[in-house]
């Protein structure tokens, strides 16, 4: 019995020791920018489900001297266009860039409880999201397209009427399919969603493409960004783009309005940086590197 008790307490102590080095506190600074500089790292949320925007670098080794909290990833463990843009923000502020990886709907919902500072995750600026989030100036623009299964025999948007279509949960694609207000200027919207469609919302856009590739027939197509469909096709998935883009999105960094820290000065800093990166061609270079196309020119 004594032995058993010793064993149990040993396990408990080991377990505690294993995790003793977790979690950090935010300090007491009211201003987010100075808080970030004080702790020496900026915590950026991005959803590593999307290549080439943001995905894991499976060969990357976490540096031993990193300041990042234990449940955040370092720049070595992530890669992609968004990741490079986030890194540029960290470099500009002179701090390390760390990545938090919550699910996408947790990012768009706001109320981040200061679990991360900023989202650099190709987020579309919409009126709905502006109620809970503050946005920077856009850092690039992507056209949204409808993709359909190759064997569906569909060649125009009108033929989709009455059919089922798929989109990722809490994406603007889902809102567009539901005929909701995606909150973009009218000049950015090129087409309305087909009538009487059934919307299937899956965890991410990627599940839509994979469901079609695996031979499921729950929906004939899906809506996502042009770049994602390009990646899907490049990966050999049996899908085709349906005509021209349906709308164009302004993608920006986002900040939580309900944050306990004041993000005004950080937002100004990020705006200044993005404007500079637009004019000196840094963003164009990054876009060419990851998308093989310049997506940084405003469409309207």
């Amino acid at each position: 019995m004594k032995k058993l008790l010793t064993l149990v307490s040993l396990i408990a102590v080991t377990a505690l020791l294993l995790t003793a080095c977790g979690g950090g506190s935010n300090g007491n600074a009211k201003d987010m920018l100075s808080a970030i500089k004080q702790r020496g790292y900026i915590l950026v949320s991005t959803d590593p489900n999307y290549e080439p925007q943001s995905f894991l670098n499976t060969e990357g080794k976490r540096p031993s001297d990193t300041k990042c909290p234990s449940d955040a990833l370092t720049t070595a463990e992530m890669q992609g266009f968004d990741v490079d843009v986030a890194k540029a923000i960290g470099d500009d502020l002179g701090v390390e860039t760390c990545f938090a990886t919550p699910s996408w709907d947790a990012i768009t919902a706001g109320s981040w409880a200061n679990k991360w500072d900023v989202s650099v995750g190709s987020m579309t600026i919409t009126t709905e999201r502006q109620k809970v989030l503050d946005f920077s100036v856009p850092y690039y623009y992507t056209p949204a397209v409808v993709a359909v299964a190759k064997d569906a025999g569909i060649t125009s948007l009108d033929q989709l009427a009455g059919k089922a279509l798929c989109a990722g949960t809490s994406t603007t694609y889902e809102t567009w399919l539901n005929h909701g207000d995606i909150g973009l200027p009218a000049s950015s919207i090129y087409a309305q969603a087909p009538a009487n469609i059934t919307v299937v919302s899956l965890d991410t856009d990627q599940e839509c493409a994979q469901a079609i590739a695996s031979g499921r027939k729950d929906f004939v197509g899906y809506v996502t960004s042009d770049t994602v469909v390009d990646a899907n096709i490049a990966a050999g998935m049996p899908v085709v783009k349906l005509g021209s883009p349906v709308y164009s999105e302004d993608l920006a960094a986002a900040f939580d309005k309900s944050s306990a820290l004041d993000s005004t000065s950080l937002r100004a800093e990020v705006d200044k940086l993005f404007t500079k990166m637009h004019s000196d061609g840094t963003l164009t270079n990054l876009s060419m590197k990851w998308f093989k196309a310049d997506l940084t020119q405003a469409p309207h």
Partner: protein
Amino acid sequence: MAAFAEPIPQKSQAELLYEAQLRRERQFRVNVALSWLALLLIIIFLFSGEKILGIKTIGLNGTFVRENWLFIAGGLSETIRISLLSITLATFLALIAALGRLSKFPPIYALSTFYVSLIRGTPLYLQIFFFFLALPQLGIVLPGLWAGVLALGLNYGAYMSEIFRAGIASVSKGQHEAAMALGMTPGQTMRRIVIPQALRFAIPPTGNEFIAMTKDSALVSATGFVHELMWRATKVGRAQFNNLEALIVAAVFYWILTLILSYFQGLIEARMSKGDR
């Protein structure tokens, strides 16, 4: 000098019967192992992607598996860590809840039954999100790992309290009476007489719960902050459009993990049942 011939040992009828029984048992174990191997081969064949004798099989992208299995395996330590922490918390809570359930003091009894009822009456998936989303309003921002451990520990603690209660109830009344006759206080009776005997009943099912918990730790990845097996599998799977392959790799690791745990559970069970004869 005449050497004495060693007498040829003559086996008794009983020894012969015993040996025959041992042989049969050994043969049975060998046959079981061979059948396992055959079943395993059938599963591997089903995932070969080849069409043999007109049977369709499931094709997997071998390149993806080769390039990413090591990365996915990197989540094993996190999975084991969550499971160890959660089972520690769960055992502690279960013991308290079981003792509370045996209490004659109404508020304590109520607290214990209320806890078990509330936790068993709601899904684990929901509880994980609850601790992740609700606690920040109280100013408690737990790292993803701790929110997960809290949810798993509370959940399994509720289930395991029933096991502990049954264990305590299995100690016969005579033991209590004997302890009382020796002049032990109720606390001493519990500590020295009842709990050691109750543990013998409670430990094997606890091992079973631990195995189940190891797999339920996959749910903790839903919040996105715990980079364990399931999280790693879904992320690389999605980004490279190979969800199925990634999930199968994770499945293999969960299986291996539970095979190892089952082996240890078997050892503990054998040890605990020694006193039964």
